[in-house]
């Protein structure tokens, strides 16, 4: 799922090398922290968060069978 989030983010931003994803396994959730270059924040969030919502939908769907909640956090 980390790889999936990286692929999605890299395709959307101007600075693909600055994309970093950190995956953390918690008891009942998998937390993915996405970091991008400051000027690319808007590109992964989108108007009214549409891009972020689409990213979350796809990543959650990919992790659906794991029985854990998948959380995508976009961090500064």
């Amino acid at each position, binding site marked *: *799922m980390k*790889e*999936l989030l990286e*692929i*999605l983010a890299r*395709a*959307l931003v101007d600075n693909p090398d600055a994309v970093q994803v950190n995956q953390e396994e918690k008891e009942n959730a998998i937390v993915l922290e996405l970091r991008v270059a400051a000027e690319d924040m808007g590109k992964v969030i*989108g108007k009214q968060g*549409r*891009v972020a*919502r*689409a*990213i979350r*939908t*796809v990543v959650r*769907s*990919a992790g*659906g069978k794991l029985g854990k909640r998948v959380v995508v956090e976009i961090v500064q």
Partner: protein
Amino acid sequence: MSTKEAMGKTVEEAVAAALAELGVGREEVEVEVLEEPGRRILGLIPRGQARVRVTVKQSGAEVARRFITDVMRAMGVEARVEVEQKEEFLYMNLSGNNLGKVIGRRGDTLDALQYLLNMVVSRKMGEHVRIFLDAEGYRQRREESLIRLAHRVSERVKRTGNRVVLEPMTPHERRIIHTALQNDRQVYTLSEGEEPYRKVVVTLRR
């Protein structure tokens, strides 16, 4: 993506050399000038050479196929990707087993992928590219079932006189319901609420 660097006495000559090596036409590439040929001063200092980098442009279909293939691999889904260009639109269809993950609940994952695909390809191509993504004919089936739902609901509204609020739908799905009932003289349809929870309401026409 194939790229070639070439030199020549002028930029034009360098580009021509690169095109000859790549075997493509001028309109199929992007040219980056790395070095302009130097100015000759009083005919004493020899002119420097022009150096260019020529890159073959990918088509929208290729960029789209690449992106969706990478995404599906990372999702652990195996599927065949078909791309068809009709007028200015690209139609992509995925076929394979277990495409449930790609479609999602009521097609929400398919819609999300389609949205991202449009963003990514338009950005890469530097122009707005409209792409429709389907998996195993899901959208066609969904459209048929929405039309059946519309007729069923309109019958219920006529029978009971009560308005019926449908579940939240995407703009495209709501349009299918509105269109299915637009010629029905006894009921009329409208949308209520805010995206992404906007719903179609079917009521008696008065």
